[in-house]
Each structure stands twice: as structure tokens, then as C-alpha cells.
């Protein structure tokens, strides 16, 4: 099995999709000759031409709006938004058009459009280059919102997103782009975990950490550190943020009796609130403590020199774990 970086795994995922289906097109700012600012589309235009891998004008609303038109015509656009903070000009097209077309046409029209968004911080970037905006999209019915966290998932979730019939907001955690891992490119679909499923990345018995994206690694490290305190912590990578895999989440919390949700996005009205509510409703009699949340502070993303303090880290996760056990 080849060992690839997460960014290369996405690249080969798109390559496979372009090979398998002539209707797939990749589009976005600088995705062609440059290969994208994170090089995720590197070499694709060279091999598939500028009709399949399209350098678009600098216009996010235009990227998503024309992708909708292309999809209505039978194409499968895979759009790249250059940075999370630049998706807002496309927000209207995403939430009021892309998400709603199927319901508006009583199920007659599907829009198989994938919108890839590098997400989150931890790379010391300037303003608008580190935002976690998943809650905006998860709040909108009609979109699938997923987030990968390792190369294997990146590759397969992207292939599944592209070949599916629904619009997908596909998040790629920037701080993980350079992480390496094995990727089973030739696995059969049935041997690969569906993108709608959450995954137990570390089994444990005492508490469940529910997380995704760039925080999966932080939670794994926190779980390792907690071993010293005699705590056996389970870590779940949610993968699908909307819809949530309620089954995997509740099965875990029903076993452990404690849950802490960890995400990079500000805490208020973040996904943690939704997950906390879901767990409370479904696992109420098993819970030993309220579901706790660890997120970024409710502040605009600060300048780079402050991001380490702003974002959740192992200490903040362990502090929440302690608070849960102290209940």
C-alpha cells in the first residue's frame, strides 16, 4: 500500500474520479498550473487538460453558481475554495441554491457538487485563512458536510463524495495536509468505511472524546496522556458532521457514560452544542456527567501569535476530561 500525505491522497482521489467518470470536472482559483495553493490539485491539469481541470476567474459565488449549472447539465463539479475564510462570497449560492434544489424540485433534480474547503488553523496563517465554518453549513438542510482527518479517509471520502448524488461540503484540515499514512487506493468500496460513518479511532471504556478534523490528533494525544491517570479514553472521529452518525456516537457514550466534544470552531452554537444535545437525548440515563464541550473561544480568529492559546490543545481537552470525572 502506498504511503501518501493527506494532500497527495486527495490528489489521487481526484485523479481516480477524473479517470473513472468523464463528467467529473475540477474547478477553482489557481487549481491548474499552480496545482492549488496547497498543491492538492498538482499535476491534474497537465494530465487531464484545462477543460477538465479549470482555472476559474477569482469569484467564489461564480465558482459555486456555475458548478450548479454544470451539474444541472450532467457534470460532476469538484470545486476548490482557496481558503475557508473566502467561502462567504459563495454562501448565498451554497445555502439558498445548492442545498435547496432537490427539495424545491420535489426530488427531481440532484446536484452532485463537491465543495472542497481547506479548514482550520494551526499553521500560523494571516486573517481569514484559519476559520472553522462548518456550523454554518451543517445548519443548512440539503448539504452533506464531511471532514477528513487522515490520508486513507481523505482519499476514499473524496471519491465517495464525488460519485454520490448530493452536494457535499468537503473539509480538509490544513494542519493535516502533510501527514503521511497508508492509502488502499485499490480497495473495494465495500471494504472502505462509508463517509457517512463515524469511526472509533481509539477504543476505550471510561469516556468518549467526540471530534473531527485537525482535533483528532490532539484528542488521541490527550487520550494517551490520560493513561497515566488510569483513564481509558475512547476517541471517535465523526467524519460526517451532517448528518451525524448517531448510532456510533450513542453506542460509544452508552458504554463509557461520559462524553466530551472537541472542535476547533468557537464553542457557542458550534457543532458541540448539537452533539451534546443529541447525546443528552439518547444517552440520558447512562450519562455520569453532562456532555462537555471544548472549542475555541467565542472570539474572531486571532492573529497568528495567539492561535495556540485560542485553539483547544491537549491541556484544555484534559481539563474537560477532569471536569467530567469530577462530576
Amino acid at each position: 500500500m502506498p504511503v501518501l500525505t493527506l494532500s497527495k491522497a486527495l490528489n489521487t482521489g481526484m485523479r481516480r474520479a477524473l479517470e473513472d467518470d468523464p463528467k467529473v470536472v475540477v474547478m477553482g482559483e489557481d487549481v491548474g498550473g499552480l496545482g492549488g495553493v496547497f498543491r492538492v490539485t498538482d499535476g491534474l491539469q497537465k494530465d487531464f487538460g484545462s477543460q477538465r481541470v479549470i482555472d476559474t476567474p477569482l469569484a467564489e459565488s461564480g465558482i459555486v453558481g456555475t458548478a450548479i449549472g454544470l451539474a444541472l447539465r450532467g457534470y460532476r463539479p469538484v470545486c476548490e475554495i482557496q481558503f475557508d475564510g473566502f467561502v462567504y462570497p459563495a454562501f448565498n449560492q451554497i445555502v439558498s441554491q445548492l442545498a435547496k434544489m432537490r427539495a424545491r424540485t420535489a426530488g427531481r433534480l440532484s446536484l452532485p457538487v463537491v465543495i472542497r474547503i481547506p479548514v482550520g488553523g494551526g499553521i500560523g496563517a494571516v486573517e481569514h485563512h484559519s476559520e472553522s465554518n462548518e456550523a454554518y453549513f451543517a445548519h443548512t438542510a440539503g448539504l452533506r458536510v464531511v471532514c477528513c482527518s487522515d490520508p486513507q479517509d481523505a482519499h476514499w471520502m473524496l471519491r465517495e463524495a464525488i460519485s454520490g448524488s448530493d452536494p457535499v461540503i468537503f473539509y480538509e484540515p490544513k494542519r493535516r495536509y502533510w501527514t503521511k499514512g497508508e492509502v488502499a487506493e485499490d480497495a473495494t468500496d465495500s471494504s472502505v468505511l462509508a463517509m457517512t460513518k463515524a469511526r472509533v479511532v481509539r477504543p476505550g471504556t471510561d469516556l468518549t472524546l467526540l471530534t473531527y478534523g485537525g482535533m483528532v490528533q490532539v484528542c488521541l494525544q490527550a487520550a494517551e496522556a490520560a493513561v497515566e491517570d488510569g483513564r481509558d479514553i475512547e476517541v471517535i472521529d465523526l467524519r460526517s458532521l451532517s448528518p451525524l452518525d448517531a448510532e456510533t456516537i450513542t453506542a460509544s457514550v452508552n458504554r463509557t457514560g461520559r462524553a466530551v466534544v472537541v472542535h476547533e470552531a468557537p464553542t457557542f452554537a458550534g457543532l458541540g452544542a448539537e452533539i451534546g444535545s443529541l447525546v443528552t437525548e439518547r444517552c440520558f440515563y447512562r450519562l455520569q456527567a453532562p456532555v462537555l464541550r471544548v472549542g475555541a473561544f467565542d472570539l474572531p480568529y486571532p492573529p497568528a501569535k495567539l492561535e495556540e492559546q485560542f485553539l483547544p490543545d491537549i491541556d484544555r481537552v484534559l481539563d474537560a476530561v477532569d471536569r467530567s470525572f469530577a462530576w
Partner: protein
Amino acid sequence: MKPVQLLDPAGDLHPHPDWPLDITPELTRDLYRKMRLARRLDEEALALQRQGELGLWLQVLGQEASQVGSITGVRASDHVFPSYREHAAAMCRGITPAELLIQWRGNAHSGWDPERYRFHIYTLVLAAQLLHATGYAMGVQRDGADELVLTYFGDGSSSEGDANEAFNWAAAAGAPVLFFCQNNGWAISTPPQIQMRAPLHQRAAGFGLDAHLVDGNDVLAVHAVTRGVADQVRSGSGPAFIEAITYRMAGHSTSDDPGRYRTDSEVDGWRTRDPLARMELLLEKQGWSDAAYLSELDLECKELGTEVRRICKELPLPELDERFDQVLAERPELLTEQRAGYRDLVASFVD
């Protein structure tokens, strides 16, 4: 339309009937000095980024004439809405190296008081500032003030919806705003041919803007055209548009690899049109630069370099704690609780 040019790359002057300019030694030296200082700041900032002292730097290399010519063509009382690369223009307004660098060091999101310099903070979301400029100009119009608003943007940004909404709105409202596009050939890796079919100044005219095209590497032409157009706008003739054809000889940013999309020969071609070089030739040919002037300027540049290196490392570090007071004018209760929790956690690590 042919770009207006007053000074060619060989350093020869070509008076233009529509854009008269009294080309004095003082004016020439002043514009040249401003460009030299901007270039020096750019070089130092690049070096600082390479040494890890700045997180990112967006070079202005090659665009000095467009910025210095235009900012000196409006009055100090006119409000400016820049994009994120207007360091040369900012310096002309007196914005200090410390105020410019702090954002790129990652210590703050902005470094200066926009009212003090009548120069708004940088905008990283492309084209957003064009609408702010338009709205500000609508305010100027309502107030009946003798001002205009100058706003900067790039060729790539002109593709955004916000840019086109601003052109249309400003024209419809007759707002006193001067849109200044630095067409520097590339939007990261994307050339203008991918952004547009109609030349920008033509599109602007289609929106009803009074549109002009100028050689953006000729500081005298940019200065003359901006001054002339600004007078028109100030007299109530409605918004205007200037497209300056220039070239950014550096990559998009210090994270960019321009070798992936453009050739050395293209860059070399533009080097022969360096905006500073032709001013040097002019000064020399006219006998307007003597050894004293040049060595004084060299010294000034050197001092600026030293100053930039010194202040960069001394820029004050931000405190997360302060951020809690900067979100809303009145801090909400929940945020106060959150801050207290953060303080407790930090305090618990002290031992």
C-alpha cells in the same frame, strides 16, 4: 485606448496634451524618493520573512509607480481604501514601518488608526473594500464635503461580484469614488485572460464610470492622470476608474512559487521597464540628481532598513486576554465567564 505615458523606459519625456504636468526637479525627486523608500521596505520585509521574523509578506516590487503616483495625485484629506499590497501608498501617507509590519508578523490584524491617516486598514477578502469605498463616498456626497475616496484593487479582484456591484452602484449613485486598479499581470497564478475578455477599463466604462488607462510603471503619468481625474471627481462629475498597467516582479506572496506559472523571460522583460530605473535615467539626463541628493537618499534608505529590522523584533506581542474586550462594544456575560475559565486554567499551570 493607449496607456497614457509621460516618461518612457529610456528616461525621455513625452508631454501629453490631455494630462499636463509641470515636471519640476522637486516633483521628480520627491516621487523617486518615495519609490526608493518603498522598495527598501519591501526588500527588508522580504528578508525578515525569509528569516522567520514575519509570517508572510506581500511584495509590492514593481508597483511602486502605480501606488506613489496615485496616492500623491489625491489630497491628504481624501480617504483611501486599500487592498493588502498598498505598502508604498501607505508609506506616502506617513504610516510607519512598525504599523505596516505588525499584521504580517502575526501580532495584530491591523496596525494603524485609519482615521488618523485617512487610510483604511488592509482588506484580505478580495474586492470587499470597493463597496466600503462606495458607501463612504456616498456619505461624503451626502455631507457635501470637498473630498473623494480612492480605492485600490487588483485585476483578479475585478472578477468578484463585490467589485462589479461597487462599479455599478457608484455609477448609479454618482458617488465621488476613484477606483484604481493595479493590473499587475497575475492573480496568484491566473493571468488576466482567464479573468476577463473585455479590457478592464472598457468594462468600467460600460458601468458608466469615467475610465482611463495609464502606464503603471510611469510614476509621472500615474500622478498626472490621477490628479486630473481626481479633480473631475471632486467637481461632482461622478465616479471614475483608472487602470494602471504594471507588473509585480515578485511572486504573489512569500508562500508563492511563481516559477510554476511564469517564465524568467517574462520577468526579465518587465525588469527593463522598472519604474525606478526610468526615473533614475530622467534625473540623470536632466541633471536633476547630484551626488549630494543621491548619497542623502542612500543614507535615508539605509536608515529605514535598520529601523525596519529593529522595530520588527520589538513589535509588542498581543494578549489573548485583551481580545475578549475587542469583540463587541459591551462584553457579553457568557464571554466574561469564558474568559474567567481561561484565566483559571492558565493559572492552574503556573507551578
